[in-house]
């Protein structure tokens, strides 16, 4: 089957190029590490043996990957119809706040009711936050890019307001009280890997399936390809914009719920630390392709997790790992030819 072989060659091609690009990023960052007087080989050895060579390290990579993966999907869905959702960060905060309300209010419910309720509320919160830009876009008033961007800090500030007013914990610190056990996502294998992984992978599979095999997916791709033609073919653009934005927001809200319920076990101000923006970058770099999203979020998670180690072993500030992250993004961004397939 020559065609199959051709596809395999193509995939191999892409993988090799990706690897080369990441190697380039590693080289560049190695230079920076060297300039600051540290040993880059030691740094990389530590990073990779820890993240890929130890169970604990690998589990932490997965834990880091979960919210990035989900927020990337929150960007990918609207992207398919040409909507730019740069507001994952804000939607995530509002989703987490909605879920937290349930966790703090219905402490006596059993987990099998409380957790789905929190998920639903998280999605509702995110969807509401995304409804604003979706609606404004649909009625042709304001571009959704800028509104989603502006609503990001607002989401975080609302969470801050709630924590310091209604949800003050008895410990009186800058966070809510710790959730009851029923409000926590179950974890696996004695690690911190939680049910969020399954949620993320199911969402990813769903995204792939809907895009590839359903009428919706077809319509969305049609809109993304040529909105005018799609309208002529009777696809209701306005309704689509709103619904798709809300779906994106709901996914981001779910990411927020997963973070507070699976990882932090409480809600705090500033908890996300740019996860929403990372999701945006990953979705963009992967061209909203499911496999690409999975791979990129895995790579980014390795970098971020490895960074935790760098400050311990070679005494560089934790934030320095952002340079490696940026280099990885740069080399991929600087080669848009790979992702030319769907250029807006």
């Amino acid at each position: 089957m020559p065609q199959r072989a051709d596809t395999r060659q193509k995939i191999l091609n892409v993988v090799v190029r990706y690897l080369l690009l990441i190697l380039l990023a590693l080289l560049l960052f190695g230079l920076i590490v060297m300039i600051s007087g540290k040993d880059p080989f030691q740094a990389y050895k530590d990073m990779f043996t820890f993240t890929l060579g130890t169970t604990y390290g690998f589990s932490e990579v997965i834990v880091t990957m979960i919210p990035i993966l989900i927020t990337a999907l929150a960007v990918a869905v609207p992207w398919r119809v040409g909507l730019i959702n740069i507001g994952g960060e804000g939607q995530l905060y509002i989703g987490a706040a909605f879920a937290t309300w349930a966790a703090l209010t219905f402490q006596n419910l059993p987990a099998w009711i409380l957790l789905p309720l929190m998920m639903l509320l998280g999605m509702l919160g995110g969807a509401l936050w995304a409804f604003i830009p979706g609606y404004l876009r649909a009625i042709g008033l304001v571009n959704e890019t800028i509104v989603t961007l502006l609503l990001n800090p607002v989401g975080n500030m609302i969470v801050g307001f709630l924590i310091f007013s209604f949800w003050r914990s008895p410990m009186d610190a800058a966070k809510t009280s710790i959730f009851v056990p029923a409000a926590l996502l179950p974890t696996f294998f004695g690690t911190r890997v939680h049910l969020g992984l399954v949620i993320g992978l199911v969402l990813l599979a769903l995204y792939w399936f809907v895009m590839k095999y359903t009428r919706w997916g077809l319509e969305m791709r049609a809109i993304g390809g040529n909105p005018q033609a799609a309208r002529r073919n009777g696809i209701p653009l306005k309704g689509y914009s709103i619904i798709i934005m809300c779906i994106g927001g709901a996914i981001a809200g779910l990411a927020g719920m997963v973070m507070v319920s699976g990882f932090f076990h409480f809600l705090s101000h500033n908890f996300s630390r740019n996860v929403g923006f990372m999701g945006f970058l990953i979705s963009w770099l992967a061209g909203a392709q499911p496999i690409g999203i999975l791979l990129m979020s895995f790579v980014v998670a390795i970098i971020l997790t490895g960074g935790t180690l760098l400050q311990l072993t070679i005494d560089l500030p934790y934030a320095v790992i952002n340079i490696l992250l940026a280099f990885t993004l740069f080399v991929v961004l600087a080669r848009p030819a790979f992702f030319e397939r769907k250029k807006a």
Partner: protein
Amino acid sequence: MKKVLFISLAVVLALSVSLIGCEGEGEPAVLTIGAIYVGSIDDAGYNQALHDSIAEIGDNIEGVEIIEAENVPENACTAPMQLMIDQGADLIFATSFGYHDAALALSVDNPDVVFEWCGGGSDNATANFGTFFGEPPNGWYMMGMAAGLMMIEDEVTDPMFGFVAAFPIGWTRTFINAFTLGAQSVYAPVVPNATAAVEVVVAYTYSWSDLAQQAITTNALIDQGADVITMHVDAPTTVIGTAETRGVYSIGYQSVEAKKFAPLKWIGGIGFTFGDLLTGVAQDVISGNYTGANKYWGWDEGAMELAEWGPDVTEAIKTEVLDAKDDLEAGTLYPFTGPIYDRDTGLIAAIPKPPVGDPWLWLTANVTIPEWMLGWGDNFYVWGVTGGF
């Protein structure tokens, strides 16, 4: 295409070989200490004070290895601590208030590792989990006295002290209260409904480290007429420095190093100096005698010290404050001896000493706080405090 594949594989291979080649070999340490900080260890504030204390362990005991991680967010501190354990840490210092729960959880999973959390208000000491803290309220009381005495010295008729704070948490309120009571103790006796002699105005920045917000907050308090500025944020640099440029007195907290930011208008400050005490903890861990405890080290034990005095502070003021320090250390003076007036309810709150009662009592009854819970925090402001919600 195959060529590219080949080359890249070769490079990866070469890289991994060279990586394996540089296996490090070091001498086994007597004790490996891991320490995580919420800010930078050079911040001239809280983190530096803790870092300097922990570094002293290394100076005092031969062969101690210290692994440190700075700028670790409170909600992402589990991984660095676990990594330190993987690197062989026997003793972990979790130095920020928000690290408590994560450190406690890890101590359950790692019974061979000792965890020491810096903060007050925990009663969770186990065989391998302990807490330590100083007595900042006593220090704040002294600083309040110093500020009040300076006002008498300068003949200020209606003194106002500005307090720049990060978050309205219990500790902060306790500090504000102790500071206010200290100032009131020297400036004028205070009763409700009389004109306040000393006013302490509080403004929150809602961030431990947003420097620009600290600057604007400090300026706002000075514009309100603050005669002295003090702060409870991570690093004193901006607040103290801004007060200096505006020509307003300042009082430092966290690290005794803060004076350099206000060479002219500095009054004094208090800072943590845990070095010797933590050395004792480390020795206990080495000898196997460690048992977790909730430690509140007093001034007499050297957990905190006064910073150098500023140039405008007279000998008489220094003497009066140092006398009070002696009394505080001896236990004959207690900052929260009543009557204390809750500014909202006007109730008299005498805070009992020694500790009695249910630890959570202060949550329900507004005014009665067992002394050891003070660190956990007051939930009221004493009369004389304005602002702060």
